[in-house]
């Protein structure tokens, strides 16, 4: 165990993906905020060290428009380019090759999606894209179905993190599959994250209590009434869930077990 509580109360509990070590176990998206200023403040409040970003065409009619990098400093945060909006392996690979050129790094989030309204992971496309990307030198954190066999296969191919959904992207339904998530984890030795589905702080805490290495979320913060406050709540929830996992919960029992002695009572 690489974590412990120091005499000054500091908790050291890092995790490592593709050779990079992080303290925060919360990865946040940078989409769907009111504006870039709010994006920057919410991410700061979340304490995240990794942020996901999308790759899109520049607006040629407004070349001087503010860019994400002006509000979320790539020197301070690890940018994790995604393939959101890619429905084929080919588009995902093209997108991430562009991302690597724009950013100069290999660590990426792969998602190949099925059609709306579910945007459920297209696992055949995901396998194809993962194979091509790994061959091309990428380090692939992969969004996937809650399928233990698929998870194992993706890991064997060389993916550096397995990231199943807890519920559809942006649904905010919370973890609908805690048992499957727990069972998948048994088959995976690389970092394991819940990606998608978290709606509020307790959902993130549940994922961490199950033993996930980290949680990836976006809408739960961006679509909260007060995104900056929710970002802070998520930070606390991730820490609380992680500590509870490490502490090991008490066994469940059917019936009461009093905390105060039943002897020595006055009569």
């Amino acid at each position: 165990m690489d974590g412990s509580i120091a005499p000054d109360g500091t908790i050291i509990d890092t995790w490592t993906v593709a050779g990079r070590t992080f303290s925060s176990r919360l990865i946040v998206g940078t989409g769907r905020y009111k504006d870039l200023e709010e994006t920057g403040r919410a991410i700061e409040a979340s304490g995240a060290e990794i942020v996901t970003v999308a790759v899109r065409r520049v607006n040629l009619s407004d070349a001087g428009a503010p860019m994400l990098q002006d509000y979320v400093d790539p020197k301070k945060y690890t940018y994790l380019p995604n393939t959101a909006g890619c429905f084929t392996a080919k588009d995902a690979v093209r997108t991430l090759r562009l991302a690597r050129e724009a950013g100069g790094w290999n660590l990426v989030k792969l998602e190949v999606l099925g059609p709306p309204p579910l945007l459920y992971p297209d696992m055949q496309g995901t396998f194809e894209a993962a194979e091509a990307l790994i061959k091309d030198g990428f380090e692939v954190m992969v969004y996937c179905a809650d399928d233990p066999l698929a998870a194992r296969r993706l890991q064997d191919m060389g993916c550096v993190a397995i990231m199943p959904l807890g519920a559809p992207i942006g649904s905010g339904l919370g973890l609908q599959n805690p048992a499957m998530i727990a069972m998948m984890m048994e088959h995976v030795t690389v970092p394991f994250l819940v990606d998608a589905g978290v709606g509020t702080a307790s959902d993130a805490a549940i994922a961490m209590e199950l033993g996930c290495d980290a949680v990836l979320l976006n809408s739960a913060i961006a679509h909260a009434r007060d995104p900056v406050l929710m970002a802070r709540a998520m930070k606390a929830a991730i820490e609380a869930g992680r500590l509870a996992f490490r502490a090991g919960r008490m066994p469940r029992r059917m019936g009461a077990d009093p905390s105060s002695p039943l002897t020595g009572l006055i009569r």
Partner: protein
Amino acid sequence: MHDFVTLTLNGENRVFDGVPDGGLSVAGLLVLTGLDTRKVAVERNEEIVPRSRYAETWLTSGDCLEIVHFIGGG
């Protein structure tokens, strides 16, 4: 000699005229569009153009270019 180049740029047909004799390079195109080269990536006919080769990558009419950057996303 042609002094203009017709490109498909992010899905739109664009004509760049007054192109100097030497032609239009990716570097030249980025200057014309006013983009910060450090924050974008360029694909020409579905092939990445490495930043180090912007100056020596010459464009010809009919080329299809994608110029992208990072935006907020989950």
